């Protein structure tokens, strides 16, 4: 199967690989997937409590090249967005940007789920500042 140039680029040079302290109040962590399904994504956001803007995002992914690219792309898009804007990222945006074939759409779904899970984790830590409830993906 041929990978798109963008998938190959993210695979070869993944952006924002790493981990942040998940116990920090500013950090939201989302972990989705399962090893026996062949992919697990961990996505973390560091949010400025004053502005609600995501200042940093990190990921680690166990999965195929498309899963790695989807989560790498997600971290790029998250930085600079507010928490609520982050939730507007849809899996179809990732599919379009990376030109994912149909068999790899589940990778983009997983990335969207990881974003939601990370934001939800952050909001749980900041119940007082959050006014809306978020569904976990």
């Amino acid at each position, binding site marked *: *199967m041929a*990978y798109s140039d963008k998938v190959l680029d993210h*695979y070869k040079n*993944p952006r924002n*690989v790493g*981990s942040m302290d998940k116990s920090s109040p500013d950090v939201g962590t989302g*972990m*989705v*997937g*399962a*090893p*026996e*399904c*062949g*992919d*697990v*994504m*961990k996505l973390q956001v560091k949010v400025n409590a004053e502005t609600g803007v995501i200042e940093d995002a990190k990921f*680690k*992914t*166990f*999965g*195929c*090249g498309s*899963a*790695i690219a989807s989560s790498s792309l997600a971290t790029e898009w998250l930085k600079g967005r507010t928490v609520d804007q982050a939730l507007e990222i849809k899996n179809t945006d990732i599919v379009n940007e990376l030109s994912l074939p149909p*068999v790899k759409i*589940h990778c983009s*779904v*997983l990335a969207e*789920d990881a974003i939601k*899970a990370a934001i939800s984790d952050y909001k749980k830590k900041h119940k007082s500042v959050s006014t809306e409830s978020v569904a976990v993906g």
Partner: protein
Amino acid sequence: MKLPIYLDNHATTRTDPRVFDAMKPYFLDVFGNAASRNHSFGWEAEDAVEKARKQIADLIGATAKEIVFTSGATESDNLALKGVAEMYAERGNHIITQVTEHKAVLDCCKRLEKDGVRVTYLPVRQDGLIDLDQLRDAITDKTILISIMYANNEIGVVQPIREIGKIAKEKGVLLHTDAVQAVGKIPVNVISDNIDLLSLSGHKYYAPKGVGALYVRRRNPRVQITAQMDGGGHERGMRSGTLNVPAIVGLGAASEIARNEMIEETKRLRYLRDKLKDKLMRELDEVYINGSMEHRLPHNLNISFAYVEGESLLMGINDIAVSSGSACTSATLEPSYVLKALGAGDDLAHSSIRFGIGRFNTEDEVDYVAQKVIDVVQKLRELSPLYEMAKEGVDLSKVSWTAH
């Protein structure tokens, strides 16, 4: 060194140039039909076929008359299983095989089950070998055939065929073995191994694709099979169809080369395989070999890299042609049934690679492959949340994952 490097010699091998040279005259000059009895074109073709038959027989300790040419091992397996089931239907209707057979055997068995044959699928132990006591216990007075492969195509483990043959003989049951991965690679002898039927394939040992053979024992006991294809009654009535003379000549030449060079070649391939294995295991942690290392083909290595996903690993080593135990190309993930039969977890099955070293691989290539795999595994582990958790001491089997 030329890239990409071919290290998938269990899938197929390059035709040996010496084999190719031997075949050449049989396309343009000696093009006769080996069944033509009335002219020299036919006689010469027949001579070539009979020479090849002898070369193949010599490789496996058989006599020439016991070799039936086929299109390859899938056909040989079909002919052996269905041919025996049909011929010996009055004597019994029970076949014993094992779960890690090639699909050519397993799917034949499934077809036969639909026709009323009872099939026992023996499990394998963690090392990939069957338990001989379980085999003995599975035999009933209705058992007509045991079909156990000589060496496995994925994990390369070599079954104790000689002991299995003894048990079969003792119980008066026929033994068929799919020896595709073993013939031409390790010593196979139908007499000392007590084999009654044996499938082999040319393209697994440097002959071209599309040619193979079935050995059918003629003495002690005389084995009979019902033909599965109707036609001109070629190959003593067991397999009709005009013989593929050039390919058969190639199969003969490849058999002779294998017989002459096996000892030296085995030594060289084992050295390269062990070098690859030792380097990977020295420089990487959490690497697991699938199947017995002791009872294994000298040129096979099947190895799992924990916390790394197979497809991303293959993507990182895309200048190396190998095969993965993971078929993760669709939403329905299906790791190798062979690795699952060993009891390997799905996660380890997903991260396995099969290396098959062959006659044309060099030491430089193997060194390059080892280093490349190490680099990619290390890079992917940097990316892997599972590796990070394992290093933190988290028991991954106790985590409640959000399966999707």
